[in-house]
C-alpha cells in the first residue's frame, strides 16, 4: 500500500492547474506529432525538448511523458485512415485498421477501438508500473543475450502466422526483410557490411521511409485504379460521433484481447531494447492463438485491440527500467533521459529515493495523460473520419505529398525520399503479385535485434550452443518455440492419418 500512498502523493504534485494544462498540451502535441508520418515519438520528443526548458523539471518531464505517451495513440490514426503507419508499432494497426475503416465501412469504430484499447493497455501497464515497477525492472535484467535470442526466435517464428494465403511468398519476403536489415554498420565489429561502397548505405536502410513507401506510397499507386469510385453515401451518414460508437457486442470483442495484450505488452516493454514494436507485434501474433470473430487481417476488432493495447502497455512498461534503473528501453527513452540530465536530475537507481516527488509525479502524470488523451482523441474522431469523405482523386496527390514530406523529415534528406519512392514501387509490384509486405516490415525490425543478441550470446559462451539451454528462461522459451513449430506438423500428420483411416 505504500506505493499507492506514493502515487497519491504523485497526484498531488500533478494536479496543479499548470501541470494539468501542460499534460493536456503534451497530449495534444503528441497526438498531432504521432499522426504525422515520419515524425515518430523519438523525433517528436527531441524536437519539443527545447520547448520545455522554460518549465521546472517536474512540469517539463510531465509534458514530455504525456507527449511520448499520447504519441502511441496518434500513430494509429494515419494507419487506420490512410494505411500509412505513423510509427513502427502502427504497422500492425494498419493490418486490421485500414480494412475495418474502408472495406467494413466502420472508420469511426476502428479509431474508437484503437483508442479504447490503447487506454486499457496503457492503464494496465501503469498499474503494474506503480506496484511492481522496480521488481519488474529487475526481472527485465534477467533477460540477457541468450534469453533475448530465444524470445526473438519465438517472435520471428510467429511472423509465420501473418503470411496469409501463400506461405512460400510470405516467408520469402520475411527473409528479404532480414537481408535488407543487415545492410549498414555491423555494431559488434564496428565495420560496414553490404554497403556496396555507398556512403548512404553505411547507415543502412532507414525504417520509417521504408514503411511509408512500402505501405503508404504503394497504396497510392493502388488507389489510382479506384479513382472514379463514388464516395459511399452510407459512409457520410455514419461520420458523426454517434455513428462512430462501438456497440456492446464490439466492446465485448475488444476487452479480452486488450486485457491480454496489456499484460503481455507491459512485460515486453520492460525487456532491454525490445520496445513498443515488438510488443505490438507479439500482442497481435498471440491473438492468432485465440478466437476472433472475423479473421485477423480482414478488419477484425480483435486485431486492432490486441496490438494497440500491447503497444501502449509497452510504452508504459518501458518506464519501469527508465525510472527504477535509469536504463532507457528505447530511443525515445534515451532522449527523455537526456532531458532529465539537462534539468539537473540524476536518473538512475537512486531516482526514486532522491527525487520521489519527481518520479511519482511522472507516473501520476502518465495516468492523467492516458485519460486526457482518451477524451481528446475520442473527441476528434468525427473530424478525422471526414478525411474518408474526400474523393480519392483529391486524396491521391495529398497523400503523395505527405509521403514525400514524411520521408524527408525522418532524417532531413532526400535519401529518405528515394528510399520511400523505391520501396513504394517494389511494394506495389509485390502486392500485385500476391506478396504481402507486412512480414517483410516486421522481420526488418526484429532481425537486427535477433542477430546482435545471438552473436553476443555466442561471444559470452565462447562459441558454444549450451548457453541457450543452460539458462532456464532461455530453455523455457525454446520449449515454446518447439511447440509452435511442432504443433502444426503434428496436426498435419494427425489429419493425414485420420483421412487415411476413413
Amino acid at each position: 500500500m505504500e506505493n499507492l500512498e506514493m502515487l497519491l502523493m504523485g497526484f498531488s504534485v500533478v494536479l496543479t492547474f499548470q501541470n494539468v494544462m501542460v499534460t493536456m498540451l503534451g497530449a495534444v502535441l503528441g497526438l498531432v506529432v504521432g499522426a504525422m508520418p515520419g515524425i515518430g515519438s523519438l523525433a517528436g520528443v527531441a524536437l519539443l525538448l527545447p520547448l520545455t526548458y522554460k518549465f521546472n523539471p517536474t512540469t517539463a518531464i510531465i509534458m514530455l511523458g504525456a507527449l511520448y505517451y499520447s504519441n502511441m495513440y496518434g500513430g494509429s490514426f494515419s494507419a487506420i485512415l490512410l494505411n500509412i503507419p505513423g510509427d513502427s508499432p502502427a504497422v500492425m494497426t494498419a493490418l486490421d485498421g485500414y480494412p475495418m475503416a474502408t472495406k467494413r465501412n466502420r472508420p469511426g469504430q476502428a479509431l474508437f477501438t484503437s483508442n479504447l484499447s490503447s487506454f486499457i493497455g496503457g492503464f494496465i501497464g501503469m498499474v503494474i508500473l506503480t506496484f511492481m515497477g522496480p521488481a519488474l525492472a529487475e526481472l527485465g535484467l534477467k533477460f540477457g543475450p541468450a534469453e533475448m535470442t530465444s524470445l526473438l526466435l519465438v517472435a520471428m517464428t510467429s511472423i509465420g502466422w501473418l503470411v496469409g494465403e501463400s506461405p512460400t511468398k510470405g516467408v520469402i519476403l520475411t527473409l528479404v526483410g532480414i537481408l535488407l536489415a543487415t545492410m549498414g554498420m555491423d555494431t559488434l565489429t564496428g565495420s560496414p557490411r553490404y554497403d556496396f561502397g555507398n556512403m548512404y548505405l553505411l547507415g543502412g536502410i532507414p525504417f520509417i521511409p521504408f514503411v511509408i513507401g512500402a505501405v503508404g506510397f504503394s497504396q497510392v499507386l493502388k488507389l489510382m485504379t479506384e479513382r472514379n469510385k463514388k464516395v459511399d453515401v452510407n459512409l457520410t451518414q455514419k461520420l458523426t460521433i454517434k455513428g462512430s460508437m462501438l456497440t456492446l457486442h464490439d466492446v465485448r470483442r475488444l476487452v479480452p484481447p486488450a486485457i491480454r495484450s496489456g499484460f503481455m505488452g507491459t512485460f515486453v516493454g520492460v525487456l532491454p531494447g525490445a520496445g513498443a514494436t515488438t510488443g505490438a507485434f507479439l500482442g497481435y501474433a498471440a491473438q492468432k492463438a485465440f478466437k476472433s470473430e472475423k479473421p485477423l487481417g480482414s478488419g477484425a476488432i480483435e486485431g486492432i485491440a490486441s496490438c494497440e493495447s500491447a503497444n501502449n502497455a509497452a510504452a508504459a512498461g518501458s518506464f519501469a527500467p527508465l525510472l527504477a534503473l535509469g536504463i532507457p528501453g528505447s530511443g525515445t527513452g534515451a532522449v527523455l533521459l537526456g532531458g532529465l540530465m539537462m534539468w539537473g536530475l540524476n536518473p538512475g537507481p537512486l531516482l526514486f529515493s532522491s527525487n520521489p516527488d519527481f518520479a511519482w509525479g511522472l507516473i501520476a502524470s502518465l495516468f492523467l495523460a492516458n485519460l486526457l488523451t482518451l477524451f481528446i482523441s475520442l473527441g476528434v474522431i468525427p473530424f478525422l473520419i471526414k478525411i474518408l469523405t474526400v474523393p480519392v482523386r483529391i486524396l491521391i496527390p495529398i497523400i503523395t505529398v505527405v509521403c514525400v514530406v514524411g520521408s524527408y523529415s525522418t532524417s532531413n534528406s532526400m535519401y529518405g525520399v528515394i528510399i520511400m519512392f523505391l520501396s513504394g514501387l517494389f511494394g506495389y509490384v509485390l502486392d500485385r503479385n500476391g506478396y504481402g509486405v507486412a512480414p517483410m516490415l516486421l522481420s526488418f525490425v526484429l532481425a537486427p535485434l535477433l542477430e546482435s543478441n545471438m552473436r553476443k550470446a555466442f561471444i559470452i559462451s565462447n562459441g558454444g550452443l549450451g548457453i541457450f539451454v543452460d539458462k532456464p528462461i532461455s530453455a523455457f522459451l525454446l520449449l515454446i518455440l518447439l511447440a509452435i513449430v511442432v504443433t502444426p506438423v503434428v496436426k498435419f500428420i494427425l489429419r493425414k492419418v485420420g483421412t487415411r483411416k476413413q
Partner: protein
Amino acid sequence: MQLKKVTSQMVIPVVTAVIAALFIYLGITKYGFWHELRGPLPGFFPTLIGVALLALSFIAFLGSFKEEKTTYPIESWYPALGVIAIMLATLVIGMIPSLALFVILWLKWYEKYSWKTTLIGLAVIMAIVIGAFVMWLGVPFPKGIIYNWIAY
C-alpha cells in the same frame, strides 16, 4: 511443354534468388562466417538467411508457372512519375514550391478540377506542410539552387 511468356511472378523469385546469392557470396568471402572462439561473424546470419531464401525462391519460381499473369494498369505509375518530377524540381526550385506545383498540376490539369477545388486542396496540404513541418517542427526542406544563387 508449352512455352509461356515471362511474367512478373517469375521475375520476382529470380530477383530474390540473385539477391540471396549476392548476400551469400559476400557473406562467405568478405565478411566471414564463423570463428572458433568468437562464434558467428558478420557474414554468418546473412548467409544462413540467404540459403533459405535461395531455396524458397526456387520453389516460388516453380509455382509461378501456374499463376495468372499480373497486369499493371498504366495510370498506377503516374504518381511515381509525379514523385520523380518532385525530386528533380526540388533540386532547382526547392521542395515546397515543387510540392505546391505538383498538387496544382495534378488537380487542375490531370483531374480537371475547378480552380476553387484545386486551391482548397492546395491550401489544406500547404497548411499541413508549412504550418506543422516547417514552422513548428523546423524541418529544413531543401531550397534549391535558384534560392541559393539569390541568397549568396
